[in-house]
């Protein structure tokens, strides 16, 4: 089903720039709430049939494939089990699978796209142009595929209680000793969006946050015109687990912040969560931009409301190593110039009468230098590991398939 122009009967497409439905043919524009389609009720009964039913084959490649008929040209549209809107591969018109968003399955809210496709690409270029370790080929990337997809979310309220034991190192006299701290309490989650699509990893979708909940509008399928969308396919266990993880993270972060110790970690906890029955079903917008680089597919995400760009990009290893060596040598020389006259003074035993206290002070300085060396290496390596982890997420096959395996 596509919403048609009242003036020329051409399929309308939602324009994020004007927040109106636009007719490419005659240039007419309409507010989504102005459009009343008479065909909508009839279309609720038009189901997508499984490929197995249509073609009479149980081949693996047809698993999770459904056949829908384009409302405009009658062409066959192949969709997966959770797609709610797509584009006809033959006529290019937007199609909404009404049976998947009808009645109880209908989302309550939608956050319309506020960022256009061109703007999304521009935002990505702005971000990556600044990166000194980003290869030139990536800076000049030409998107292989750009899709605006409405991701299903459940917006949940929840009550959470927890009691945690935190282990930390506390200074006692000259030494550091291990101490345990207990914190018990509760928190309330309000309007926390939880990704309701199993095909998209929670790790990727949570990075698109924050979404401005105040931008939500009552659901109207006309906002889907020209975009892709998926319906919720998560279970109550999935939502409960996701909410529990987020609440636990918030609680532990606050509890640890309030403990004055170093090397803190939670050793024990007993969390409880009650997710309210007042969950709201909403569709939130995101642009998925894919491009190939060295035989791997990379997918950049852009929040369709705020324009936040999310990705971890491959790096110029040669430049990184060269910079590391040059900086390392320069810093070594500088440190040697400082340490060479200082170290003999620090390490030579004092003949002074207060020798024991001054020796302690020297010992502390040397321990501090060693601790600084270890700390700097750990911090640097952790940052590199974080980047590598996000590059893997950007090159994840699941997220590429989520974007690419759609018609149009």
């Amino acid at each position, binding site marked *: 089903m596509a919403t048609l122009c009242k003036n020329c009967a051409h399929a309308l497409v939602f324009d994020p720039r004007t927040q109106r439905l636009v007719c490419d043919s005659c240039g007419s524009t309409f507010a989504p709430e102005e459009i009343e389609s008479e065909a909508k009720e009839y279309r609720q009964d038009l189901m997508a049939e499984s490929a197995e039913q249509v073609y009479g084959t149980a081949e693996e490649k047809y698993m999770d494939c459904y056949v829908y008929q384009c409302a405009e040209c009658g062409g066959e549209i192949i969709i997966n089990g959770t797609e709610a809107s797509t584009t006809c591969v033959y006529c290019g018109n937007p199609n909404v699978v009404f049976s998947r968003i009808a009645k109880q399955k209908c989302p309550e809210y939608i956050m319309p796209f506020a960022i256009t496709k061109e703007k999304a690409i521009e935002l990505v270029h702005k971000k990556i142009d600044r990166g000194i370790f980003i290869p030139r080929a990536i800076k000049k990337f030409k998107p292989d595929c750009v899709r605006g997809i409405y991701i299903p979310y459940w917006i949940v309220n929840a009550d959470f209680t927890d009691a945690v034991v935190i282990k930390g190192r506390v200074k006692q006299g000259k030494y550091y000793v291990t101490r345990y701290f207990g914190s*018990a*309490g509760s928190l309330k989650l309000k309007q926390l969006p939880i990704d309701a699509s199993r095909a998209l990893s929670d790790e990727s979708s949570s990075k698109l946050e*924050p979404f401005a909940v105040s931008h939500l509008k009552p659901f109207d399928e006309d906002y889907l015109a020209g975009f892709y969308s998926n319906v919720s396919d998560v279970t109550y266990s999935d939502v409960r687990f996701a909410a529990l993880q987020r609440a636990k993270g918030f*609680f532990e972060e606050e509890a640890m912040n309030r403990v004055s110790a170093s090397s803190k970690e939670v050793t024990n906890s007993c969390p409880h969560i*009650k*997710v309210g029955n007042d969950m709201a079903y909403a569709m939130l917008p995101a642009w998925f931009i894919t491009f190939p680089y060295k035989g791997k597919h990379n997918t950049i995400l852009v929040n369709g409301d705020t324009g936040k760009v999310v990705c971890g990009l491959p790096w110029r290893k040669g430049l990184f190593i060269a910079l590391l060596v040059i900086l390392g040598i320069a810093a070594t020389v500088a440190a040697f110039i400082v340490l060479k006259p200082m170290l003999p003074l620090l390490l030579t035993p004092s003949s002074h009468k207060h020798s024991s206290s001054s020796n302690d002070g020297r010992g502390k300085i040397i321990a501090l230098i060693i601790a600084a*060396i*270890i700390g700097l290496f750990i911090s640097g390596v952790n940052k590199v590991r974080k980047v590598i982890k996000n590059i893997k997420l950007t090159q994840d096959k699941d997220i590429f398939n989520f974007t690419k395996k759609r018609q149009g």
Partner: protein
Amino acid sequence: MDVLSFIFALGLGFGIACWACGTLLDKSNNIGDSTGTKDTYGVHVHFTCERRLGNNETNTFCANHDKPIEGENNAPRGSELVHRLSEEELERYKPTAAEEAAAAGTLRNTVEDEFSIWDSQQPSGDFKGVFKPLDKEE
């Protein structure tokens, strides 16, 4: 001594270089690596107990402060797909008066409270009132 100075300088020099390059790489290639925080969602954590634990308390603290939430299990769960609940389902999962009272933190001290809660929990059949608790005057 010079050798020792050189070893320390080498460690510090490459440590600083490692940290600086790691930071630069993080800023350059790791874009938008953040999620919604406590402040984004206006989360306020209310602590009921915060203290240093003795050695014998590390295993018992959680058990002693374990606070299950009333009606925690009174919600759809398991492998059922999440969906908008119908009127009937909402009625089925509605918390009982006792749970609501507990959630609101009210104490059921008075006999009147006990009676009204007990009444609200009874099925609307002929047996209503048969097992009613004794009136305070009785």
